[in-house]
């Protein structure tokens, strides 16, 4: 009964979304307030029924209703309760339901927090979001309903959730990522609404900015969580694989970052108006493309689900309709937009332009590398894959140049800055960072290392120019405290996010250069030395969990005779799926991680094991930086000027 209620609510929400896509928009055409006012109740209804649908699915999971095919395929009576809940988004159907639910959540938020918006504008925005909802709910209902029953005979117990997904990281990673993906639909809808109305002015940018910032913050947070999860659960200590699905989340983030910056310029100075609209369209289109890549199984990827081509086709059609439709609209309306503001080549606007060029180029190179195998295969060029060296070769240098510009941008003012003033501000930080970059590899490592020199210099460069700018704010004020509280939340958010980039850059540089790793055969009593730490293998014992049993190894880590940590990596056998899972154990701190994972037993008695031991300096900085960026993005939204009206 409950799954049928879920299905029925889903159908109702589809009907409401269809009305939402049509009625308010028609209201704006015939200028009828009543029709436009229908948008809000429709949004409420859509959210209500999607919530009911999601709760029904959650209920089916908690009561182990294995007559529901999706529950039977992704859960088991032995599964701990928190994983039964997160199993809702553990598979294809449920994660799409989550997608649709989050979309309606964003729509509801827009309808609640946009009181300042003119009625017709709000009606257009909500209608566009209604259209997206129609596409996705229809996709759910027609190709992948999570409520289909196993009939006539259903299994006595479920097939269990994929062991890789039975983890805290997977409880939080997908919802966070989807909040970001789907969040760009708001920026997209604002852009389309602005195009429809022909009013592309600074106020449009002001309305859409906080939404874009939140979406960007969530997407960054989601990517960070994904990287962290892959590090300890899946990747044998790797944190980024240039996997197509990772790329699919990185591309909208890159374009979203460009969008966040160009929106700032549009709001403050009225420049790049049509470019900003185009970026908003691209950010969401890339989110859709990401969904397509993950769901259609066209690419070889660790995330690929076994799925049928019909689904892929449906999303492809959806993708073509939304991208084609919005670009056509753009082609007709954008030429009417005039940017009247002027700026010189030595202005903050110019630097934001450079930032945008770099970010879009990065997104394009990632797109090229991700889709090239598909393209070549379609042209009959054979089956290929593009390896990480390609991405590193093109991505890292551009990232470096962008960081250079990021540091310099602190010396630039809006409109016009005299080149002499810029040089005067910047020469000292430049010199200091070059010196620190030069010395650092000698102190931390064994000798000169070019990539460390570049990475550390760039990081110091950004930190020092940013600090100079920050201190400059205090020059003419008597009370520091007063000045500190007077600076806007947007400003602090910007500082925090830029600092996040620096922290990530330091992390990437040091972990790439100074990591040490050994795979070896170890028997009880064997000792091995890595990066000054001694690892002693003390053998394994059998332990039991709720739905698995495991060989748990013990390794004692000592340094200079002192015990640092006892690590207990596990090799788990999940009884229902009969699959093996490696559970690494990590001794983390801010400066280094000691990472130990058990491979497989190498003899019948289980005395000798394949063991991987890793020393990962500064690896935590990667996720710390991601966290700082997320916090920065969220902080900007708390700014006073968005709360006025």
């Amino acid at each position, binding site marked *: 009964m409950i799954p049928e209620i879920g299905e029925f609510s889903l159908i109702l929400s589809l009907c409401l979304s269809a009305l939402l896509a049509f009625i308010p928009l028609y209201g704006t055409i015939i200028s009828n307030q009543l029709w436009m006012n229908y948008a809000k109740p429709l949004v409420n209804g859509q959210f209500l029924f999607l919530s009911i649908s999601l709760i029904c699915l959650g209920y089916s999971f908690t009561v182990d209703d294995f007559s529901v095919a999706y529950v039977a395929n992704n859960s088991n009576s032995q599964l701990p309760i928190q994983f039964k809940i997160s199993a809702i988004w553990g598979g294809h159907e449920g994660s799409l339901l989550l997608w649709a639910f989050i979309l309606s959540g964003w729509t509801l938020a827009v309808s609640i927090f946009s009181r300042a918006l003119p009625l017709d504008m709000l009606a257009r925005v909500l209608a566009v979001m209604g259209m997206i909802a129609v596409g996705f709910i229809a996709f759910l209902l027609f190709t992948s309903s999570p409520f289909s029953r196993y009939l006539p005979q259903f299994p006595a117990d479920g097939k269990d959730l*994929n062991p*890789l997904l039975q983890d805290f990281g997977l409880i939080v990673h997908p919802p966070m990522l989807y909040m970001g993906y789907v969040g760009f639909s708001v920026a997209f809808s604002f852009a389309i609404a602005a195009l429809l109305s022909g009013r592309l002015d600074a106020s449009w940018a002001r309305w859409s900015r906080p939404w874009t910032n939140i979406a960007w913050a969530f997407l960054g947070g989601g990517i960070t969580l994904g990287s962290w999860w892959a590090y300890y659960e899946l990747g*044998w200590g790797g944190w980024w694989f240039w996997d197509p699905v990772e790329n699919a989340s990185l591309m909208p983030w890159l374009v979203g970052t460009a969008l966040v910056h160009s929106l700032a310029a549009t709001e403050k100075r009225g420049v790049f108006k049509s470019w900003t609209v185009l970026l908003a369209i691209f950010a969401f289109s890339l989110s859709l493309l990401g969904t397509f890549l993950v769901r259609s*199984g*066209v*690419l*070889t990827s*660790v*995330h*690929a*689900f*076994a799925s049928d081509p019909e689904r892929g086709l449906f999303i492809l059609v959806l993708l073509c309709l939304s991208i084609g439709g919005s670009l056509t609209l753009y082609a007709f309306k954008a030429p009417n937009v005039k940017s009247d503001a002027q700026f010189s080549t030595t202005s903050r606007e110019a630097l934001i332009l450079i930032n945008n060029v770099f970010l879009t*180029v990065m997104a394009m*190179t990632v797109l*090229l*590398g991700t889709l*090239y*195998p598909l393209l070549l295969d379609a042209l009959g060029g*054979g*089956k*290929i*894959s*593009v*390896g990480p*060296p*390609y991405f590193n*070769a*093109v991505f890292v240098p551009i990232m470096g140049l962008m960081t250079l510009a990021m540091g310099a941008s602190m010396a630039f003012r809006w409109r016009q800055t005299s080149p002499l003033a810029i040089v005067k501000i910047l020469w000292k930080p430049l010199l200091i960072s070059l010196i620190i970059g030069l010395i650092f590899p000698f102190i931390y490592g064994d000798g000169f290392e070019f990539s460390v020199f570049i990475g550390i210099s760039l990081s110091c460069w950004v930190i020092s120019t940013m600090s100079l700018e920050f201190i400059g704010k205090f020059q003419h004020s008597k009370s520091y405290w007063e000045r500190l509280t007077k600076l806007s939340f947007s400003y602090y958010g910007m500082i925090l996010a830029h600092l996040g980039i620096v922290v990530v850059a330091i992390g990437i540089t040091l972990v790439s250069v100074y990591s040490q790793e050994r*795979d*070896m*055969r170890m028997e009880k009593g064997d000792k091995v030395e890595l990066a000054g730490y001694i690892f002693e293998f003390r053998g394994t014992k059998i332990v039991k969990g709720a739905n698995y049993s495991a060989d748990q190894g013990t390794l004692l880590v000592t340094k200079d005779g002192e015990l640092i940590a006892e690590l207990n990596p596990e090799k788990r056998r999940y009884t229902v*799926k009969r*699959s*093996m*899972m*490696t559970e690494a154990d990590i001794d983390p701190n801010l400066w280094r991680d000691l990472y130990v*994972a058990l*491979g*497989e037993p*190498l*003899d019948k008695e289980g005395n000798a094991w*394949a063991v*991987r031991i890793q020393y990962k300096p500064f690896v935590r900085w990667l996720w710390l930086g991601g966290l700082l960026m997320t916090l920065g993005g969220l902080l900007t939204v708390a700014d006073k000027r968005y709360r006025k009206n």
Partner: protein
Amino acid sequence: MTPKRKKRLIIILALVFGSSTAIGLTLFALNQNINFFYSASQITNGDAPKNIRMRAGGMVVEGSVERSTESLQVSFKLTDYANQVKVVFTGILPDLFREGQGIIAQGKLDANGIFQADEVLAKHDENYMPPEIAETMKKKIEVAQ
């Protein structure tokens, strides 16, 4: 040419030059780093080049996995149900590596026709078959019929 047009021409030329360099370098990097996929039959027939990084895929032959007692070296055979190719790998195999499972090995083919893998990939989902393998399998079955 008016000075304004001249300025525009310079900007356009700079743009064309800059973007074509960027595209050229990107394509160069791409061509250096693509790995072609070969099936077991293509390798045994000699269609695959020697000593070039590539991917080989197929099913792990039941009973073919042999471990060294001294090191982490392991060898196994890959099949596309027509021909078999021997793969040697030193390191830790992924959790989903099993006999009878579809996998992809990345590495080079040596002079003796043995595939020296430096990476072995198996997937999240045990029902999932990499598209490359699925397709070669389908062809084999069609030919057999």
